[in-house]
């Protein structure tokens, strides 16, 4: 899942350029995402993993690094009871 998230971030915000981004780097501090990027990222994880991100969850604590994203997704899936993080069929 982390690799999938990294690929999305690299493809969409870095135009495919390798950035040396570590799993703990802040996407915001690194200048990788702005307000629009946040929304694009949320749309991506909602569509890819079939979850719904609430407004109150739209926080750097949940979304601002690959590790935080992965942890957030795992918590969401656990809370939903589906127990799976498999990408949704397109």
């Amino acid at each position, binding site marked *: 899942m982390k690799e999938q998230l990294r690929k999305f971030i690299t493809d969409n915000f870095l135009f495919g350029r390798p950035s040396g981004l570590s799993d703990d780097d802040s996407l915001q501090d690194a200048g990788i995402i702005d307000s629009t990027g946040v*929304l694009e990222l949320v749309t991506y994880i909602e569509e890819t993993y079939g979850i719904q991100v609430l407004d109150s969850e739209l926080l*750097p604590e949940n979304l601002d690094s690959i590790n935080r994203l992965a942890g957030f997704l795992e918590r969401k899936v656990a809370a939903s009871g589906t127990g799976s993080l498999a990408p949704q069929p397109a």
Partner: protein
Amino acid sequence: MDSVREFCRDDICQVAHLWLRVFHRSAARTAKPLEDYFRQIFFDNPWADEGLPSLVYEEPGRGITGFLGVIPRRMVFNGRRIRVAVASQLMVDGRAGAYPAAQLMRRLFAGPQDLAFSDGANDFSERLWRACGGDVAMLYSLQWTRILRPILYARSLVRARGGWHYALAADALSPVCHALDALLARTGPGSRWLPDCGDCTIVDDPADQGLYAQMRELAAGRRLQPGDDFESFRWLLRRAGEKKMYGDLRRAMVLGPGGEVLGWYLCYVKRGAAAQVLQFGARPRAVQKVLNCLLYRARQEGAVAISGELEPRYTRDLAASRCDFGWAGCAVVAHSRDPELLNAIHRGDAFVSRLEGEWWARFSDRGWVQAEPEGEAPAEAVSRSEAPLPINIP
């Protein structure tokens, strides 16, 4: 914790100061006229709707760091009254990061309105609007311009580049520019294209009631049309009349040779600058005539050019009157859960003028900054536009 909540009257002072920091980099301590204006536009407007509040983003210990104004409006779609949320003055303190603007936009789109709409979206807010699932109304985002005095128009462009040397050069050349334009109007090829009223009569300052009746009648043929009652329309005209950025608001009705009403216009005119059309409407076979009267009067009053938001049904007439079309700088953006409604906008089947969005508001006027900051303004509060555009995001 939910950081987005409804804007209340007690927040006005904080929001006004945020606005000054974001759009003017000003740390002015007093903002009384601006506070009054926020109150008037967002709380004391005639469309007050508790279900469509403006929104603030508040952080513990830091107060309000984000704002998204909502002006509730009423429109009519397919004969049904609908609720419209006109988005205005989106702003976020530069220190607040990327999340407040995203949260504010999501909350707006989740609201109970049938249509969310803005005609003041700069590049950043347009991207944000799209990322949130909204659309850009390409047709209505186009602006038409007709040059009325080519040499003076070129001079105004030079002057607008900023810097004292440009202004000095433009002013020094002013008499020559006037003389050349006068010469062109008499002898050059431009003399053939001077606007003329023909057999029409311009009636200045018609009664509000008359304008309202014309607007209602002409808009009635569109699937999406304004739904203002007369009192709301009058309030809107008064507020639009207070805007001074583009000069004084001229309002006129155009009559045909038999005294029949052919159309009307509302237009800001300032001598030596480009006039800006707030709204104009005409009967289907009289668009050219009304347009000619509008161009004629603007030129007569010293405008060097005239611009307006594209009304798609008038495209052919505007082109025939030698108008150029271009991107306005600010986009018209829309969001609705009803695809039919969006379809009506994209097809140009909507009566949407600058009076329906937020363009008429005078947030972009000069004069809001009363007291200069003591020391440096906060560097993080950055407006990305040279002029104070209505929407600003980090």
